[in-house]
């Protein structure tokens, strides 16, 4: 299914149910959403409202029970694991609350990891990693391991890693959740700069400052979008 030229994310009547013991949990109940290319959207709402479930569907790491999901012009809701993995590698960048950097790899090697997976030649990925680390302000920390970096620095490395394969879409799940207020502000500024430079961002957050920095806010409650 091809969506409008401006939409990078398109969800139509998406439902996602989970089995929780004997019960059936309806995490998403008919969600429809369009995100324009170059947009910066914050998904907000109380815990358990379905924000992360929605982000997982947009990120092609989960599949809906019903409805359609299209990302960057491709219908992704019924992809095989192999197709979905390749799609994520080349089209989506993920930033997580807990950074999840590989402890034994340097900042530069962590950034290069998705490029190695995409079989980018070594010289090219080293150059790209250096360029991305410079972009997030960590030129001097290329050789440092995650344990030698502060929380904010680790999150910036994770953002650089998410941008490694020139993704069409950057997804972030509570990216400031583990950071203090000052460091959180730095990450908010970095997201703002990324969006200004053309990156489409969808972020799930409880952080009001981060949500307010987005161009659009999507409010969720009980598995539904209540205000977009």
């Amino acid at each position, binding site marked *: 299914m091809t969506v409008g030229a401006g939409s990078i994310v398109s969800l139509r009547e998406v439902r996602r149910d989970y089995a929780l013991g004997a019960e059936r949990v309806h995490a998403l109940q008919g969600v429809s959403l369009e995100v324009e290319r170059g947009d910066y959207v914050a998904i907000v709402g109380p815990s358990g409202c379905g924000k*992360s479930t929605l982000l997982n569907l947009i990120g092609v790491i989960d599949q809906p029970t019903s409805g359609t999901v299209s990302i960057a012009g491709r219908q992704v809701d019924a992809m095989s694991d192999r197709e979905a993995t390749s799609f994520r590698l080349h089209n989506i960048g993920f930033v997580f609350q*807990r950074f999840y950097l590989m402890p034994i790899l340097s900042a530069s090697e962590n950034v290069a990891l998705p490029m190695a*997976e995409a079989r980018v030649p070594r010289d090219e990925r080293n150059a790209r990693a250096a360029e991305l680390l410079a972009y997030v302000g960590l030129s001097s920390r290329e050789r440092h391991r995650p344990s030698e970096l502060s929380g904010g620095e680790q999150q910036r490395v994770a953002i650089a890693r*998410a941008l490694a*394969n020139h993704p069409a879409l950057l997804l972030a799940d509570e990216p400031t959740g583990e950071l203090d207020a000052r460091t959180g502000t730095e990450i908010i500024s970095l997201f703002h700069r990324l969006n200004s430079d053309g990156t489409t961002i969808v972020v799930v957050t409880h952080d009001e400052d981060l949500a307010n920095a987005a161009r659009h806010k999507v409010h969720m409650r009980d598995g539904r979008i209540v205000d977009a």
Partner: protein
Amino acid sequence: MRATLAQASLIRHRARTMLAVLGVAVATAMLLDMVMLATGMRESFRELLLSQGFDIRLAPKGTLPFDTDATIPGVRAIMSVLRTSPDIREISAVLGGSIHIQVGARGISAAVLGVDPAVQGDYEFVSGRDITVPDAIVANDYLLAKLGARFGDTLSVAAGYDPQTRTYSGQRKLVLTGAVRFIYGASEQPAAAVRRETLEALGGGARRDRASLFMVRIRKGVNPDSVRNWILAQIPTVSVISVATAIAEVDQRLSYFRQLAFILGSVSLFVGFLLVTTLVTVSVNERAGEIAVMRAIGVSRTHVVQQIVIEGVAISLVGAVIGLGLGLLTARYLNSILSAFPGLPMAIDFFLFQPRAAWSALGLLAASGILAGIYPAWRAASLPIAESLRREAIA
């Protein structure tokens, strides 16, 4: 990159990895020792039989050489028959027995072989002179030390002790001419050799024209089994043993050893397998979130599987290499204990190192490492990404 990540995950829990490697090393050492034990004695025995170039042995009917005190009568007649075969090159008739040597007030007993020094294959000459004359005797180091005698000393030697009459069938003065090392002799067994006719004479009428064993060298290129069959047809009153039949006989007698070695070796391999599976599974469970993130950023299932399998194989191989050294040391120690067992030839090794055995052990360990990695790798590759991330967030 996968090898780096596998290495990273192993290094992250150094102590745990070291313990697993040590466990695999112990299992490998045990496996190697069992493989060496299963094949070592047989190979060692084969090497021993072939070491002097004798292909066929004739022993009293129904026995193995020197299994009993029984002897074969009609040495001259047998030699005459054997010499008619163009395939037979040399024949060594050996008469075994025991002697008593009087040194001052002390009496020392020793095993003795009566041989023809020109064709004998029972001892290696060490020093002095061989038994070139009928009144010469050579002895091994152990007997020489007990005697405290020197070359040229005359020894009072008696044989054929009769406990009823408390007399010997023959006594003779023999001159100690040399030191030898008996190839088939047991460790710490005093032993000597004289010419066969000398021992026959010492044994009295009962030992005349008798031999405990004939050893036969055949011509190059001749099939030992065809010669064996020919001898059997010509002299049906003896057991004719080729190296192959001797090994088959030894194989039968050592079947308990081999079964034990097989069972213990299998147990060690299984323990190593379980150890690696457990460690890698625990490691995968701990890294569920990390693996889910790797999958989320686009790392394929195949590459996750490869990384986990590499971890299993790495533990197995490092453990195996350490285990090979450990196994060799243990085998040497155990061999020294078992070889000192009374009555066994010194040249027999219980644990014989063979490169093939080492490669077999390494191959089995590598295969078990791959198998051990498959279950945790399958678990890792099957982790639902979204669910794992949700659990990780809750944790």
